[in-house]
């Protein structure tokens, strides 16, 4: 098993030179380069370092090695709006979308950064890197949600902003039952002041062509054709953000600029184009795990395949979801002599995990988005791939707003440090929760204003999971096993211990 090496992280498969160059540039340019930081933090990309982003960039994690490929790289990041602190708070996009973390940010990285900078890194900006801006910012406790579960504060407008050019009139009321952080009450925050704070994990911004891909022109969960981008006429995937509040990368950038970056101006068209081009050129996935390279012996893991493949394919009618590891179902005698026993067993486990993912069915019930109006019925029997259906990525080919219960009671895990809201449906009750709903995060309903959408969170990419714990939108699963354990509790699946481990091993190499 590979060990996690923190300082510096060892390059295993990548080209050493770009990172060496980048490290040198970082030492010269980082605003936080200090005795406490040193080479540490070749792993951490600070805004404005001016590092070179290489074509191939590897970072170790507890499951192996994550690789990021930059098409057209290397890229000199000097002056690049993704990397420069164009904000008013010292952040850049890269602050919360770190290459070592699959272009997301792990809670462990946040903790490392707190320790290295004594909490003064722009990552911990009061606006959203603390539990609430009105808390004492020098104290660790004021940043506990970011440090413990990798959560950023997301402030949503209430009532919701117009959507697709139409006014949103909510069909529910929202009250604050509990406000442990002070960001949903008082004279400044809370529904009555038009500001609702929820707390969410940053979504990875690599492999974007898959998240923007549209396989079909219908949204079967809404019973409507997909909306189109009014500027380009393209259909909109609906898979960018947890609550689907932004339909395009441009909208997402504008939202992030005004909130996470606290920009005092709008992004320019050139900045948007440059950031978009960069994000569409990035492909990130685990390149090696306990079984060695994930593209060895006929397997097709790793980011190179992602870079080269067509996005938007539905696994049930095309290349099977996680068929990348089918070759490991039957490991040759030659490979068995070449590999260690542990590597062979791990590969076999990954291959079994892929089959469990596709074929081990269980009853899904009371999950708005898939058990309500689509026609499948409630309950219905399916496997993981039913929702995680896009070939090579594991997100939903259709807009992926589904309520797994991770944010709403009674299914959500218990957290005292998250706000708790009471939703009261004004017209029809929610099909499963009833007229009153207790939720930590109404999710999609904060965008649509519909009671029926409470708790729906957009499925996201499953690539690079090993690098970006914790999981689920509210960081409620600290590790990959906890993800499986949640599904087991939620749907009473009855996975065997072997099946659970096989699924964990599969997810660790994606």
């Amino acid at each position, binding site marked *: 098993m590979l060990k996690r090496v923190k300082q510096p992280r060892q390059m295993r498969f990548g080209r050493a030179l770009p990172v060496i160059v980048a490290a040198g540039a970082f030492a010269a340019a980082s605003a936080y380069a200090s005795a406490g930081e040193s080479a540490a933090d070749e792993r951490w990309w600070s805004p404005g370092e001016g590092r070179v982003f290489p074509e191939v960039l590897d970072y170790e994690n507890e499951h192996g090695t994550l690789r990021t490929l930059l098409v057209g790289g290397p890229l000199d990041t000097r002056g690049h709006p993704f990397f420069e602190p164009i904000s008013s708070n010292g952040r850049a996009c890269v602050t919360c979308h770190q290459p070592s973390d699959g272009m997301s940010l792990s809670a462990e990285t946040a903790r490392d950064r707190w320790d290295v900078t004594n909490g003064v890194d722009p990552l911990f900006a009061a606006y959203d890197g603390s539990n609430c801006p009105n808390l004492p910012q020098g104290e660790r406790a004021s940043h506990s949600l970011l440090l413990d579960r990798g959560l950023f504060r997301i402030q949503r407008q209430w009532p919701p902003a117009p959507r697709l050019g139409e006014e949103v009139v909510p069909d529910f009321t929202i009250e604050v039952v509990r406000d442990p952080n002070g960001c949903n009450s008082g004279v400044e925050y809370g529904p009555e002041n038009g500001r609702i704070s929820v707390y969410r994990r940053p979504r990875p911004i690599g492999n974007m062509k898959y998240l923007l891909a*549209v*396989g*079909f*022109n*219908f949204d*079967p969960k809404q*019973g*409507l*054709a*997909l*909306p*189109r981008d009014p500027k380009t*006429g393209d*259909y909109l995937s609906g898979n960018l953000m947890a609550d689907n509040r932004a339909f395009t990368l441009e909208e997402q950038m504008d939202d992030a600029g005004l909130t996470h970056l606290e920009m005092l101006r709008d992004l320019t068209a050139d900045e948007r184009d440059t950031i978009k081009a960069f994000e569409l050129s990035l492909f990130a996935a685990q390149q090696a795990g306990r079984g060695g390279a994930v593209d060895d012996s006929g397997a097709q893991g790793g980011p190179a395949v992602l870079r080269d493949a067509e996005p*938007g394919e*539905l696994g*049930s*009618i095309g290349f099977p979801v996680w068929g990348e590891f089918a070759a490991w179902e039957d490991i040759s005698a030659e490979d068995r002599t070449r590999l260690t026993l542990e590597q062979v067993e791990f590969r076999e486990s990954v291959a079994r995990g892929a089959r469990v993912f596709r*074929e081990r*069915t269980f*009853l899904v*019930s009371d999950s708005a988005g898939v*058990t*309500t*109006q*689509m*026609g*499948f*019925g*409630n*309950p*219905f*029997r*399916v*496997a993981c791939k*039913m929702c995680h259906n896009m070939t090579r990525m594991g997100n939903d080919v259709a807009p992926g707003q589904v309520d797994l219960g991770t944010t709403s009671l009674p299914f959500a895990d218990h957290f005292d440090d998250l706000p708790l809201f009471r939703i009261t449906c004004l017209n*029809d009750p929610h*099909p499963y929760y009833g007229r009153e709903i207790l939720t930590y995060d109404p999710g999609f309903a904060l965008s649509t204003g519909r009671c029926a959408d409470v708790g729906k969170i957009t499925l996201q990419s499953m690539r690079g999971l090993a690098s970006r714990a914790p999981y689920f939108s509210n960081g409620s699963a600290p590790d990959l096993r906890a993800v499986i354990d949640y599904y087991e509790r939620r749907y009473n699946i009855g996975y065997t211990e072997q099946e659970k481990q096989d699924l964990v091993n599969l997810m660790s190499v994606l």
Partner: protein
Amino acid sequence: MKRPLIAATMLLAPLSAQAQEVGEIVSFVSCPVYRDADNGRKSGCWLVRDGGSGHQWDVSQSPHKPNWDYAVFVEGRVADQGEDICGAPVLEPVRTSRLLDRRCPRHMLPAEGYPGRVFIAPDRYLTSLANPPEFEDPFGPRTFYAFFEFDRDFLVYQYSDFIVQQAAYWIEAAQPRRLVVTGYAATDPIEVSGVELAESPEIAQRRAEVVALTLSRLLPGMEIETRWETGSQPIDVPDADTIPGQSQRRVEIAVEF
């Protein structure tokens, strides 16, 4: 009001299980039972017992399947069944409409040796953007029909969505002058299993607006007029699958050149 009630009664008259022959129509309201058969994805069975005849039916082939919390309005034809897949005679074609004002106790049966159906993608399966259908002249005035669950305006997956999508591809190729989208609601009451059923008048407008919105997204710039009518009567068109009630719950898309 009288005429539709009489017509419905004639069509939907309760018949004993022994008297029901292949092709006869059956209609009733009752609570659904889920049989947890496992023959791969979506292979579970839905069974519903007709309280009038005492007969239980396999209604699993409905394009919009039941929710085990609510009663369903079943409309189907007795199928010429071979193998007993779910443990009850089959209705096919069949429709099950959820009645959300009539709660039911959840009930699930084990498979008990019944295999359940292997899921086969239906013929009405959305066309991917990578493989759009092609249509050629001659084009001329034509009407398309999309269908709905009782008292709902949702274009259900692998049924109504496909119909509207295919219509849009044809319209795109035909380049007509405009579309007239008319929503219908079956507002004349019928009595089924002692329950009076009538769609709300508003649903006719909502159906028209949902289809018009979808067509406006599929066909940007197309002129679309919406209309709506209540008191819908059955029509005989293929995609209603010979279910008279289904044909009443429709939207018509009239293509004008």
